[in-house]
């Protein structure tokens, strides 16, 4: 392989590397989703005190997924991870009606962040396997996702625990990136 070809190959492979930020309130299921994306066992997950990072290969993309703890006390640190984010994944516990307003406020603050300007958003309406889960349509309405301007967005009903909807969500991430390029 000539030097030029090698450089080209390096360039094209680095172009396919994506930085994905995984945020949401505590107990939303971020780490379970992260481990499911990486096809790992989800039965012994501990509450995240700092952050977790995993690299997932999908359809020629190398996804570096950053999962940051969601307790109220540590949400101010989320901003330290905003730089160079290609996609924002926001996880919601669809059964946690008590905190729908809180999660909506946190999401709105994220969408107003300069550093996340124009970054595509995928909302995961998680825990759909549970009986009290609100449907994704209701959550989309409550969060007023329709009012989002200036970025691609998608809401995905899923259960990170059973993996339902997780692949579909991945599909959307990849197709969003294809569109963005």
């Amino acid at each position, binding site marked *: 392989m000539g030097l030029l070809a090698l450089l080209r190959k390096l360039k094209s492979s680095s172009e396919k590397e994506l930085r994905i930020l995984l945020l949401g309130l505590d107990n939303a299921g971020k780490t379970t989703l992260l481990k499911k994306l990486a096809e790992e066992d989800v039965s012994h*997950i*501990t*509450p995240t*005190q700092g952050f977790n990072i995993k690299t997932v290969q999908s359809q020629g993309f190398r996804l570096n997924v950053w999962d940051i703890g969601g307790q109220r006390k540590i949400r101010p640190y989320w901003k330290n991870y905003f730089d160079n984010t290609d996609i924002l994944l926001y996880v919601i516990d669809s059964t946690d009606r008590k905190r729908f307003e809180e999660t909506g406020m946190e999401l709105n603050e994220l969408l107003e962040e300069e550093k996340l300007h124009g970054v595509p958003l995928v909302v995961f309406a998680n825990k759909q396997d*549970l009986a009290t889960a609100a*449907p*994704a*349509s209701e959550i989309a309405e409550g969060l007023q996702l329709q009012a989002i301007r200036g970025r691609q967005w998608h809401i995905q009903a899923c259960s990170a625990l059973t993996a339902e909807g997780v692949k579909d969500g991945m599909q959307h991430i990849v197709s969003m990136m294809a569109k963005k390029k």
Partner: protein
Amino acid sequence: MSWSFPREEIHTRIESDLFVFPNTTEYRASPSTGRQPSVIRKDRKREVDMKNIMVDGVKNETVGRIPQQINGQQFVIQNCENCNIYVFDHINTVTVDDCINCNIFLGPIKTSIFIRDCKQCRFVLACQQFRTRDCQKIDVFLCCGTQPIIEASSGMKFGCYQYYYPELEDQFKQAGLSVFNNTWSNIHDFSQDPTEAHFSLLPEDAKVEDYVPDPTSELFKNVHIDHMTSKSVVPLTHGTRRKISDQSCLIVFFHDDYSQSKVWQFIKNMGEEHPELILIQTKEVMMQPPDASRVFRTDTYASAVSQGPVIGLEYNGDNSVQCCQEVLSRTGPAQNTFISQSRDVSASQIENFYNFADMQMAV
């Protein structure tokens, strides 16, 4: 077992319009049979299901569920005051919100329990994840597979889970919880305050039944609870309390058909023959041959660890190494076990084993 209690009567106090579900739940509506049930019947069924998995707005009463009523579904407790609430079944996940002065027993929880805006409550529960926010004065007898976390909570007190009824052991299995993985005393506080401790440990002699009394109502008459320490499905551990001696002993049982019962026999014998020694911690964890070489500093156990998860015990007390060796040799053939050879090496073995186990438990 057949349970014939008046289901409707118990739930009539629960408002049925708490959850309003649109009929268009495209995600969940996937009938496995070709026959589509009518929307009305579906909504009616959902309403009954909702009532079954909730206790909402109850005051000054004893309520709950008996084995096989929840069967791995979620459970929700909210807006209760001065109640005794018992769920004698395994559960997927639990939220407890806005409760005051309640005594609550919950069967093994497969994923997380989240307790919020509660005060002056007492719990007995087992779970994979324990989380609280905005709580005050909560006592918990806990079995937790991961490090319990609290946030914006104060006056939290923790003790080691102790409970028995005949169905409980199987419910732990259904929930995927190991009775040997219990980090009840190692709390992480997200709102640490150098001037004030938000949590402490319950007195060593605290009795579960003094905090959450056994139910006396008719509904629970077939749940046969026993508070004898030797019957508890979770072993009583000392946790992070100050140790009584600088000598500890590590005993590891490698997996075989009898390893669980050998562990229990050993704990029982230790309790009878050496009540002065204390069980600090237990752990059930998978090990690969290279892990075993690092932890035990020998390749001897490479094949033993490949059989399945190992169970490790730490006993503390003067002369604990010698006493454990003697009890172990009387408990049965020493094959498929590891025990510290001398007090000179036991400290580093315990550190190696539990550090390894903690690493395995992290993501």
